[in-house]
């Protein structure tokens, strides 16, 4: 067998964020002549700025109201975007292909019924602060469907129900690295003949106080007036989250060719690790990962979609890695995609990969995402693209995306 038959091709992309819906909307905004401004909501969740989701008519991908009612917003968002990716890949509605589509979804979940929580919290410390009262309130006020709408594996479950993906269904958890692992495991399985056709991705709804709480227990969120991604380090750093969903269809080259699928790009390499994060270990890890991607990254123009999350010292280390690349003789164009989309946890890496696939297919790269990034005219052609995503405290991932020759 030709060993390249199991190369990993990206044949479908669904992407939704604060910037818009779909590849075209993102491409137009991110390559426009004028410096793009991030879309922000600064008052509703103050002191936390967030990037709110663009208005979406969910019924375009989730026609049954009854299905929509069964889902939390993050699930609706993910099911919607998964449908976009399936349609884009020419798989939607094709039962023969859906039956062999393996799904790996990266999911958090836990969207709470905040009004019920607030009412219960009010009883704390009062005369009604008793377990019996709490039990009664939970039994009466929780909706049965709400449990399912906050359950991590039910994003994948709803994708099966709404879009008919039934080959297999797995859900990875673990914040941004879950999004990375979902793609990495799918790619490895394709390379080793453990499946030919995959749907991978994740969704994150930033517009919720319960989600902000989950993160700011770690004091990692940026508060107060907005600062661009690469400028936050001087004030201690911090993450600004964004509502994003990204799904991709990955398939073997052989499978894509056989069904005449039009690929965006090839996922030529993907590696992950877990450094101790002491003494610049994350930077050393990234250097090592570049070597593992090895000869596939020739010196010359190199596009770098960094998933830097804004939290320190991780973000300064990612910036230092861009400098390392320059020192190694690469002509680097750095774009922190979290600067413009916000950090989107499980959806973050899939979103970066979607942007990389899109740029590869267009043979052009993006204008700077924030003012501190420099223009690099030399990357206005088919340069390889590396995409990174690191957790704020654990986990480092790097992928290489190339144009298909």
């Amino acid at each position, binding site marked *: 067998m030709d060993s390249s038959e199991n190369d990993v091709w990206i044949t479908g992309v669904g992407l939704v964020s604060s910037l818009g819906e779909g590849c075209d909307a993102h491409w137009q905004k991110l390559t426009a002549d004028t410096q793009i401004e991030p879309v922000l909501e600064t008052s509703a969740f103050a002191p936390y700025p967030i990037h709110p989701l663009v208005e979406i008519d969910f019924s375009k991908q989730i026609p049954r109201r009854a299905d929509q009612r069964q889902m939390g917003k993050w699930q609706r968002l993910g099911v919607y975007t998964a449908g976009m990716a399936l349609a884009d890949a020419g798989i939607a509605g094709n039962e023969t292909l859906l039956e062999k589509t393996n799904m790996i979804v990266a999911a958090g979940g836990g969207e709470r019924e905040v009004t019920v929580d607030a009412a219960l919290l009010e009883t704390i410390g009062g005369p009604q602060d008793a377990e019996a009262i709490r039990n009664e309130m939970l039994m009466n006020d929780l909706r049965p469907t709400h449990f399912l709408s906050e359950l*991590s594996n039910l994003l994948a479950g709803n994708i099966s129900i709404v879009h008919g993906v039934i080959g297999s269904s797995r859900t990875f958890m673990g914040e941004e690295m879950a999004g990375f692992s979902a793609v990495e495991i799918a790619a490895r399985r394709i390379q080793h003949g453990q499946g030919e056709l995959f749907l991978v991705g994740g969704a994150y709804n930033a517009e919720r106080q319960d989600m902000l709480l989950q993160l700011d227990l770690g004091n990692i969120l940026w508060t107060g007036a907005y600062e661009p991604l690469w400028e936050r380090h001087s004030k201690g750093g911090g993450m600004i989250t964004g509502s994003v969903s990204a799904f991709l269809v990955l398939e073997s080259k052989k499978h894509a060719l056989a069904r005449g699928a039009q690929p965006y790009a090839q996922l030529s390499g993907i590696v992950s690790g877990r450094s101790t994060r002491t003494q610049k270990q994350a930077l050393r890890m990234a250097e090592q990962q570049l070597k593992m991607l090895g000869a596939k990254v020739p010196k010359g123009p190199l596009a770098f979609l960094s998933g830097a999350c804004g939290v320190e010292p991780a973000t300064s280390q990612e910036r230092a890695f861009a400098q390392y690349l320059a020192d190694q003789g690469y002509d680097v164009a750095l774009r922190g995609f979290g600067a413009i989309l916000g950090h989107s946890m499980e959806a973050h890496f899939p979103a970066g990969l979607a942007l990389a696939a899109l740029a590869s297919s267009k043979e052009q790269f993006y204008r700077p995402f924030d003012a501190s990034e420099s223009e690099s005219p030399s990357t206005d052609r088919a340069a390889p693209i590396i995409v990174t995503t690191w957790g704020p405290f654990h986990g480092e991932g790097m992928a290489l995306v190339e144009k298909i020759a």
Partner: protein
Amino acid sequence: MSELLDEKGRPVVVVTGIGVVTPLGRGREENWRALTNGTSGITEIERFSTEGLSTKIAGTVNFVDVDPLSGQGLALALAIESATEAIAQAEIGTKGSFPGPLFLATPPAELEWAQRKDLYTYDQDSSEKGYARLLAAARSQKFFDMYGLFQYGGVGDRLADQFGTSGQPISLSTACASGASAIQLGVEAIRRGETDAALCIGTDGSVHVEALVRFSLLSALSTQNEFPEKASKPFSKNRDGFVMSEGSAAFVFESYASAKARGAKILGVVRGCGERADNFHRTRSKPDGSANIGAIRNTLKDAGATIAEIDYINAHGTSTPENDKMEFLSLKAVFGDHLAGIPISSNKSMIGHTLTAAGAIEAAFSFLTIQTGVIPPTINCDAPDPDIELDLVPNKKRAAPVNIVLSDSFGFGGQNVCLVLAAEPA
């Protein structure tokens, strides 16, 4: 050397270490003794008040110290228990340095009422309400430990630190099939040749009030509170829901070649794994059983096993009206007349439904069945369901040579995974 590869040319995957903890006890020996004696681990809940709740029983692990107690904290503690036992049995690696990746089935992380209360009462003078007050407490920078544990990858990160597994740990949830999925991911990694060994764990410590209420509201739980040990009665006519439980099982899996080379004792083989997703309903299977049937058939195919080879079926057998009926119909569709001659039992009749951990715990018991030639019973088999004709190994264990086991896991959300587990080739 052909025995080191399966008929598809893939590395054979063997198990060299097993650890388990359930409400029945700590470790393989305690559990196996209780399980084969038909002991129930289901009791009245003492962990929290059940006043006003329709279900007041569960299987709880109360002999592992976790302070402060939380579902996440208990899931972590139970996983440490089972992984420590598995690694010790395998005699692999060095302390704090396991030579392979971690695949972990763990419940979705969530703050519970104890944590919310701690946050809410942090500033007694606050005039804020609801989440604004919780967020203000978070900004005090006093809750970093809570942050770490209650991330979705929190338990996995701590286990990776403690056992020194390689690379990025993978935490996953496929509902009640999660434990089997963790095993499947480890098997796939070894088959790809990426690693010689993998640590696969399923863990769950979710018996807390809100989890119980949520399953109650879905009408999924048994409400037969009067005799807790009788409540879980898989495949019986009067079954009325599952009984929540918790526990953990861990495995050291290795390539046969690597295990042999280091002289490890081989405890069994994972012959095959298979899955199939259902797209019918969030909590119910397709009426024709095609997703469950597909999962079983894909598993047999992956294992290269025929229906005649299966000596015993370790059922998903939750004791819900829906699952047990669908599981029987699916098995009948695959095994046909053969089914009547295959003993099948549900460990959940004794330990309850350990949810995220179930697929792993039941795989552990399946390996022990193979090793000892003893099939644990289905207890509470007193009122047979006339529509379910199965040899349930009712109420008393049975001695029988068992070489190959099919273990089923069917989850809410349509995630179905089965395993074929076997003895080491003679």
